């Protein structure tokens, strides 16, 4: 597994230009806020927004899986807690402003994460995934069977009663985009702060060898639970954004096992123990099926016989790309990009 350590060649390059990171962050933020000027509704609503939210969910799982080394296949369950909490808080406590509601929803998801993380103190690896799988099924059942959570709606679906900050309506594609991108930017900053902090380093110590970590005085149990809590906090907010910033209306099945696996693939494809890699993974998962579908508009594929064969072929190609990618680039897209950038810079090669 990769650690946060940069590879040797690029390190000497970085040090002299201190602040390049800050410049990149500022440039990134400006670019992010300028996106709606360039992109139309289609790009915003169906490509950029889901990509960013899934990337955020990837960060949530990556904190747990990549940094602490605990496998979870119940990520979508924590997303659903965030979504249903947001809905109920907005509905039942109308005096709360949206940002507060989002944070509270994240905290509720975090509590659930800690509870379902308890088995992690005793069990590891595949056995642990069974416990998180339990969370997956439990919450889907809970939100389907108790209609209180969806305000007794006939179709058991939830949709945001109001989406506004300081009277500014966020229903439009641009409004939803700003909500999503601002929340995500803050959470990325938080994620960086955490992984660079003592907590983050202790997580990695636990991941690399938990016995050794406990010998040097790290409170393993506490840190593992904290990891579950923080991971679920991120996932909870991602879930709320998914339901109201993207889908508009959702039910418990929008957060099914498939979604959990998608998040797992985002982490694996994007790169374990990375932050921005999650967005690459999310781009891959969200964009590839759409691109393959669009390809059929450009290239005449009628020789394949019929649309059905074509639709199935897309799945085959998608699967093949994933397999090839994982064989050729087990560290994920982020490491591929890093090497690509390094290859484009001749100095980097000579210095290494």
């Amino acid at each position, binding site marked *: 597994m990769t650690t946060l350590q940069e590879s040797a060649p690029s390190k000497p390059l970085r040090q002299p230009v201190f602040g390049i990171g800050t410049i990149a962050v500022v440039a990134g933020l400006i670019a992010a806020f300028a996106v709606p000027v360039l992109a139309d509704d289609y790009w915003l609503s169906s490509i950029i927004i889901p990509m960013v939210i899934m990337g955020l969910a990837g960060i949530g799982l990556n904190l747990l899986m990549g940094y602490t080394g605990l496998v979870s296949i119940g990520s979508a369950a924590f997303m659903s807690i965030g979504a249903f909490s947001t809905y109920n808080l907005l509905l039942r406590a109308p005096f709360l402003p949206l940002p507060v509601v989002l944070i509270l929803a994240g905290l509720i998801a975090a509590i659930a994460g800690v509870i379902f993380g308890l088995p992690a103190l005793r069990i590891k690896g595949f056995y642990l995934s069974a416990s998180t799988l339990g969370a997956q099924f439990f919450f889907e059942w809970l939100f389907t069977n108790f209609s209180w959570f969806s305000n007794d709606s006939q179709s058991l679906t939830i949709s945001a009663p109001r989406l506004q900050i300081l009277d500014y309506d966020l229903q439009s594609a641009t409004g939803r985009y700003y909500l999503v991108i601002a929340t995500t930017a803050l959470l990325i900053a938080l994620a960086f702060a955490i992984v660079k902090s003592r907590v983050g380093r202790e997580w990695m110590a636990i991941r690399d060898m938990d016995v050794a970590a406990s010998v040097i005085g790290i409170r393993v149990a506490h840190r593992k639970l904290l990891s579950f809590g923080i991971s679920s906090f991120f996932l909870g907010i991602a879930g709320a954004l998914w339901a109201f910033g993207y889908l508009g209306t959702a039910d418990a099945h*929008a957060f099914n096992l498939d979604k959990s696996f998608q998040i797992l693939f985002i982490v694996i494809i994007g790169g374990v123990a990375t932050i921005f890699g999650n967005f690459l993974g999310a781009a891959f998962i969200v964009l590839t099926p759409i691109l393959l579908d669009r390809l059929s508009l450009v290239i005449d594929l009628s020789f394949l016989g019929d649309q*059905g064969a074509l639709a199935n072929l*897309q799945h085959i190609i998608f699967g093949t790309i994933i397999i090839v990618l994982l064989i050729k680039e087990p560290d994920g897209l982020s490491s591929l990009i890093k090497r690509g950038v390094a290859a484009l810079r001749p100095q980097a090669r000579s210095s290494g």
Partner: protein
Amino acid sequence: MSLFTKAMSLATAAMAVTLMSSASFAEDGSGQQLYPLFTYRTGPYAPSFIPFGAGNIDYLRYINEVEGGVDGVKILVQECETAYTIERGIECYERYKNGYNGALTAAIYPHSSGLDVALTDKARIDKIPIVSPGGGQNIATDGRVFPYQYPLVFDYWSEAQIIVDYIAQQAGGYDKLKGLKIATLYHDSGYGRDTIEPLGILAKKYGFEDIQIPVPHPGEQQQTQWQQIRRANADWVFLRGWGVMTPVAIKTAARVGFPADRIIGDIWSGSEDDARPAGAAAKGYLAVSVFPPGTDYGILKTLKKDILDKGESDLKDNSKFGTVYYNYGVIEAITFVEALRTGHKKFGNRPLTAAEGQWALENLDIDQKRIAELGAEGLISPLKTSIDNHKGETIAAKIIQWNGQSWDTRTDWIKADASLFADVIKAKAAAYAKEKGIQPRVATN
């Protein structure tokens, strides 16, 4: 740079170009009406889509090639695969909501109840009509609150009424319902629970005993439920199944000795693929049918002559011709084409915009005379919409029976009494409007 890195960068570049430029390569659609066909040719529900999509495509092909378009306006069919997921569905909606290469979008048929619900807010903002024949949201019947939702043709509350009417017919009158036991075995989901409330009201009205039994998704095990039905000594079972739940129910019923001809399936439990897997146990099994199967209708004969026999059908397996799902596709395409004709009368014979499509869908009037002209007698029942009623004024269904090989039609159209639940539905829509802060429209014309 390694070969792999190079290949990846090339592929990325190629994909980016594809995404940016796909529109410019495609054929020019100006002067045509877009029909974005939301498909699910992959995924667990693909077997029902394949004949359903073919019914749709075949009818539109017939309109385009034999009739020369709808009043001369050609329909451009653009497929978009959703795999029956909401995310892919939203992408398809965003891709086609503003038309495609000059062809205008007048309405979108999402082909999924979940997607229909998910698009509610977006469609209201974008002002795009969302049409779901047989699978829409019942509260959206109130078009004053839901200007852009069209749950055409059918709803489960009317279905509950039709079931009770049929049972009353069999028992010899509504007064004979008193003391009867009607068990509803439902898929435990929003869809399945939708009939609990109307059956409760009907039970109170007619005095039958209402037994509600849930089956958890997907419903591969139903021994306990059927034993419960047996113990309760139910006279009839209303089977509100979905997918594998239906054949399992029919087989389990046979095992516990409950007669198949006392089980009435929901419209989604009433296709060939629901009954056939249950084998001999399904003989005599009844179902509600809004999309009657069969090939004896005028329009089906025309499609066979002009499309199927000429090898132009979208079907790969011609035995699916005239099945429940194929005919459902034809009926759906008829609603689209008739809406266009309605719009053409007001706005002229040209492609309609979404706003014009909305007006047309709200002023549909497919009466008995028009049905005869369409060659669809027996296939569809009259459909008349208004601002107050986006579903259609009269909701009707037939009861069909499985003979071991195919479906036989048992009854003519049974009409649901629309007045019975109208107030309850209106009240629900009003509550929704309040929660969402929507000001209901006032009917002006």
